[in-house]
């Protein structure tokens, strides 16, 4: 059986969307979630571009390409804002994840960020000890 030319790209895009969505929802670290956002975005653009090639016509529909370019611009700006916020959050003493407390409802330890529970516990922080260094290591890993 001969696969149409667009099919592998579309399947690849669908796979990236799934991976990205999983990372966005399941991962506590902010930087990973931003990466996951970009993976999912890339998947959607790939899928959209591949589907534009579907049908009887010999050339690709240019409208999705115009939309993909706009979408990439939007995604880059969103990523820039997210990274700036993450840097500012870390600079203000925040962890690599978000604090898990909701205001007013059962406040937990402010410093007990999600990250302390991640990666099978081998990354447990010593509270108050050089958080910024931990931050950099966490980001590099």
């Amino acid at each position, binding site marked *: 059986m001969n696969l149409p030319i667009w099919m592998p790209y579309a399947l690849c895009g669908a796979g990236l*969307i799934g991976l*990205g*969505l999983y990372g*966005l*929802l399941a991962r506590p670290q*902010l930087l990973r*979630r931003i990466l996951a*956002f970009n993976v*999912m*975005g890339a998947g*959607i653009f790939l*899928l*959209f571009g591949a*589907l*534009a090639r*579907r049908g009887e016509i010999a050339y690709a*529909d240019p*409208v*999705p390409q115009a*939309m993909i370019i*706009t*979408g990439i611009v*939007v995604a880059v*700006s*969103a990523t820039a*804002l*997210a990274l700036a*916020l*993450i840097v*500012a*959050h870390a600079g*203000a*003493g*925040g962890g690599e994840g*978000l*604090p898990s407390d*909701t*205001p*007013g*409802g059962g406040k937990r330890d402010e410093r007990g960020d999600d990250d302390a529970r991640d990666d099978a516990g081998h990354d447990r922080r010593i509270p108050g000890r050089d958080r910024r260094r931990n931050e950099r290591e966490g980001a590099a890993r």
Partner: protein
Amino acid sequence: MSPALLALVLTLPLLGALGAVAVGRHGGPVAVAAALATLAAALWLAVRVATDGAVSIAVGHWTPPLGIRLTADGPAVLFLATTAVIMTAVVLYAVHWITGPKAGADRDGPMVHTFWALLLLLWGALNVIFVSRDLFNLYVGLELASLAAVALVGIEGRRETLAAALRYLLFALTGSLLYLLGAALLYSAHGTLDLGLLAGQLGRHPSDLLALAAMTAGLAAKTALFPFHVWLPPAHAGAPPAASAVLSALVPKASLYILLRLWFDAEPDGAGPVGPLLLGGLGAAAVLHGSLMALRQQRLKLIIAYSTVAQLGYLFLVFPLVAAAGALDPAGGDAAWRGTLFQALSHALAKAAMFLCAGLIIEAAGHDRLERLAGTARALPITLFAFGLAAISLMGLPPSGGFVAKLLLIEAAFERGAAAWALVVLLGGLLAAAYLFRPLAAAWRSPDGDAPGFAPVARRRQALPMALALAALGLGLFSAGPAELMGGLP
């Protein structure tokens, strides 16, 4: 003439944002000028649409499916006008707040440089959303609004507000991507993204159900529908009060507006009875959960923020109420449709008034903790009166806009023989009365002997939330005009 007005409504806020960036820390007068000009254009446009019917522009004379058509119909101009009224009040409030003697910000800090540009950019994005009928154009507007709103949440740069902004951003980005995925699937199935051309086509293609589900989930996350609401209270309570007013009153309405357009303009068939029922059930859960959480809060801004979660819940009751009308009786959903729009508009006005009241109380008292608010009513009588009027609209007492909204929703529920939804509306009203009574009671208590004093707040600033609260009341008193503009279910 009218197309020019529509173009002005879209471009004036953006020009104002550019101007505010250009003049740096003296952006206040530029923002006031842009706000007043846009307000005038939006109100004039609303009058023109009310007398002559909808106004439409095909951008660059390219018509759909290749071009983008912008249409200001009845519901669109109602949202444009309400947005303009709220934004103008917020701009006038914030001018003094940024430059005043007890300014909330460092006078040369980043806040003074960016606040006006972000606020006007947000306004421009909201206006684009209200008049677009193209799903990709709506995506760009939605992203522009989200990014400006997230930046406004984190503008003070404290760790809690930055965390709230990041949480909001992650929800908003996930929502946008799901929406974009749906738009991509719809385009590849139908070759157009124009809602008018999609009408009657949705549901014909096997991928349509997936597209509709992804878009609905994404937009629901952006509208803070229960259980995707966790980002809302910290973000809205942590932002500066002027920004909170806009974020709570207007930004969730934009994604809801797209959701309404998608479901009722494009009329997907084959969505089945489960989808609307699920949305309505989550809306009902939001009404109850948000109200109960609001009852438990000790800070005024958190009470108001959780109240937003509850009030947004009512807006999702339209899906089961209209779906129950079904194909048998297409005119039967009109009451639900109008009730939902009345709820969206009156909540916007009342909630903006409340957040501005909270901002004035914080300026006067230095905090918003309920147990130390005794004597506020004596120090800020006009502010507390405005808060009370806004509360009347949120509880749904006559003659407010909130009353008209709830009356129409209850009427629609009984007409459809679905009294359970009416019960949710009534219960939500009672709970709203309970959670709004607490701050009012705290403010009217007489202070103990050694209570700290209050800083004075100018009367003309106290008049701003008052004007918004009166507008929410007026929406009920003069509901005939707006109801006519809303029309029936599209």
